[in-house]
C-alpha cells in the first residue's frame, strides 16, 4: 500500500519524529511504499543539515535521509512546507537566493515545497498518518 506521513513537531523535544521514523522504517520493511513524508509546522526543523547531536545519540535528520524516499524522477519525497520553513529560518539554495540570505540549511535528502504537496499526498496515498504533539 501507499502510505504518506505528516510530521508536525521538530526533533529531540518531542517523540513524534522518532515514532514516525520507526513507523516509516517498519512500513518499508513490510514492502509498503512511503509515497511522501510532509514536514509541517515545527516539523520543518527535522530537515536541518546542520544538526550535530552527541555521538552516542541518534541523528534524526540522517535517519530520515537514510530512508532514501524518492519519487520516480529521483526527487526527494521528504517534503518541507515552504511557509513553515521560511518563518523558522529553514532555507534551501533557491529560497536563500530569492530572499537575499547568505546561507542555506536544508539537507539534500529533503526538498522545500508547498502545502499542495500534503493535499496531493492525501489523495494519492491509501493512508495518511499524522505524528505530532
Amino acid at each position, binding site marked *: 500500500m501507499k502510505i504518506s506521513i505528516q510530521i508536525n513537531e521538530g526533533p529531540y523535544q518531542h517523540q513524534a519524529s522518532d515514532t514516525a521514523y*520507526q513507523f516509516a522504517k517498519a512500513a518499508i*520493511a513490510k514492502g*509498503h511504499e512511503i509515497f511522501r513524508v510532509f514536514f509541517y509546522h515545527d516539523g520543518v526543523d527535522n530537515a536541518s543539515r546542520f544538526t550535530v547531536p552527541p555521538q552516542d545519540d541518534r541523528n534524526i535528520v540522517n535517519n530520515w535521509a537514510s530512508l532514501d524516499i524518492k519519487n520516480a524522477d529521483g526527487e526527494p519525497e521528504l517534503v518541507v512546507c515552504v511557509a513553515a520553513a521560511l518563518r523558522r529560518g529553514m532555507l534551501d539554495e533557491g529560497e536563500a537566493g530569492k530572499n537575499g540570505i547568505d546561507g542555506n540549511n536544508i539537507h539534500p535528502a529533503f526538498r522545500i515545497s508547498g502545502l499542495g504537496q500534503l493535499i496531493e499526498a492525501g489523495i494519492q496515498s491509501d493512508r495518511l498518518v499524522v505524528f*505530532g504533539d
Partner: protein
Amino acid sequence: MLHTVNKSSFERNSLQSCLNTIDDSSVILLIEDGVISAAKNSKSFMLAELATQGRVYALQGDVEARGISSKLADNIKLVDYAGFVDLVIENGTAVSWV
C-alpha cells in the same frame, strides 16, 4: 478507523475525547506517553470495556521505555512498529489525537 493517542490521560483529555467520539468498529492504539493510560490503576478504567472487546493496543517499545510492562491492565494487546503498520493498513483511516 484507527485512533492513535499519544498523551497520558493525566496530562490531557485526548483519550477521553477519543472515547467519546469513536464508533463500534474503531480500535485504539496507545503510543508515546499515551501508553501510560494502559497501566493498571491509572485511568485505565476508561479503556476497560474496549480492551475486553480486543480493541485496545499499545506500542510495546513505548510501554517498556516507561517501565509499565509489569503493570499493564488486562486485555491490552502489545504491538511493535510492524504491528502499528498492520493496524494502519487493516483499519482504514487513521486519526491522530494529539
